[in-house]
């Protein structure tokens, strides 16, 4: 076991970042998430996989209360971030989302400059005391987003003028600018070419040193490449949750087996 690559796959699974218990989600009369319990470990990439409509994105959106914005959506159960109930009345969802950042499927930079895209979050959360402070935060975030070198000479150009892959990395930089503890990613690479995908995946792997990353992906190979833990959702149930290598070589549940190996199930 002296192989470095094998070693780095070993994860300290002891620390739980997000603990969800008995989560139910309803969209009106539709029961979308059925009694899901899962412990998302700290400083680990956790992948949510499953067929369309299985509830993986819905569940992801519960983790930073994005479902609050949907009127007919009702969330029950218990979701705790570092032991604190995120659905407690005293929790401000805006503050929560600063701690639990999100990156979406389609890169969605604001129609502002690259600089302002990243500076927006720190500004509204009052994280910078001065212009110099803010400059530093922006640079740090862009570096963490692995895009600094590409944009440092045109920080005031519009973010929308970047390529798709660059826009997505800008969005990741924007998400990390508020110093979140958890990063939720909903199909972050589905609109990107293979090179940009590889860059974002490399970035995800670097981010896990500091954050808990939860990624929803339709690409099983992506889940296999970037995650240490994989959760398989099917028809609103969490069918199986385990170490990624185990899920892809020896899944315990026949439904997982059928799905990951591309069988009709």
């Amino acid at each position, binding site marked *: 076991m002296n192989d470095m690559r094998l070693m780095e796959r070993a994860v300290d699974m002891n620390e739980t970042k997000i603990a969800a218990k008995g989560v139910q989600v309803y969209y009106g009369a539709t029961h979308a998430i059925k009694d899901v319990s899962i412990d998302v470990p700290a400083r680990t990439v956790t992948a949510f996989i499953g067929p369309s409509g299985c509830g993986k994105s819905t569940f992801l959106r519960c983790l930073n209360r994005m479902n609050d914005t949907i009127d007919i959506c009702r969330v029950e159960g218990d979701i705790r971030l570092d032991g604190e109930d995120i659905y407690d009345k005293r929790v401000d969802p805006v503050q929560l989302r600063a701690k639990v950042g999100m990156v979406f499927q389609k890169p969605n930079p604001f129609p502002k400059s690259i600089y302002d895209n990243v500076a927006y979050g720190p500004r509204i959360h009052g994280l910078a005391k001065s212009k110099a402070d803010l400059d530093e935060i922006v640079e740090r975030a862009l570096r963490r987003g692995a895009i600094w070198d590409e944009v440092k000479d045109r920080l005031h150009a519009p973010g929308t003028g970047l390529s798709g892959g660059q826009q997505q990395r800008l969005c990741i930089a924007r998400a990390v600018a508020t110093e979140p503890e958890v990063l939720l990613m909903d199909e972050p690479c589905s609109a990107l070419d293979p090179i940009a995908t590889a860059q974002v995946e490399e970035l995800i792997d670097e981010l896990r040193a500091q954050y808990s990353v939860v990624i929803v992906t339709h690409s*099983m*190979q992506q889940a*296999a490449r970037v995650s240490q833990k994989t959760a398989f959702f099917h028809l609103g149930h969490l069918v199986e949750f385990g170490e990624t290598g185990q899920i*892809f*070589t*020896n*899944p315990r549940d*026949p*439904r997982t*087996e*059928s799905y*990951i*190996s*591309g*069988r*009709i*199930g």
Partner: protein
Amino acid sequence: MIDQHIASAFDRDLEAIQALLIKMGGLVEEAILLGAQSLETRDTELADKVRAGDKTIDALELQINEEAARTIALRAPVSKDLRTILTVLRVSASLERIGDYAKNMAKRTHVLADQRQIEGPDAALRRMAREVQEMLRDTLDAFVRRDAALAEDVRQRDHDIDQMYNALFREFLTFMMEDPRNITACMHLHFIAKNVERMGDLVTNMCEQIIYLVTGEHPEEPRQKGDQTAIFGGDA
């Protein structure tokens, strides 16, 4: 679970590669039997046939390797599919090795044909070879039927082969001590016996791989080790 992929071409690829393995297994079984027969009857013509046949076995192994590499590259198999490909690769490598041992047995038939006949070991060697061939047949059955219990059964049967080898080892020593003129023949026969014993070990490896294929776990229970000639020197 329905056992078909959405991409039916993937199913066809997997089936084709497994069919190649079964074909290879059949040829190796035949090589063992014919090799042992050529030895017992000192039939050099049959021995030459076995030696020539090994080329087909080697070619099949190469083809299986290529098909497996292609399937891994194009289909990125996971789970049971991945374990199938891994098993095919390892089993084909073991089969190739067994084929080599059978060829070697045939090769030694030529030398032995010119030596004085020693009564006894020939029949024992043929029984041993037949036993190994039956183990191999059951192993291939276990692979096709995904039958871990059968694979485990075969795995335990390797003990019998080891016992047969131990008995032969002592017999050869006796023959050589009795008359030094027996030494050349006995050395060759001993190499053959050892090779057949190795065939049994390779079949055992295949069985372990098949258990992994079916259950996803490597067998834990250690199997009995029967070859004790390295410990006791055979003169007990």
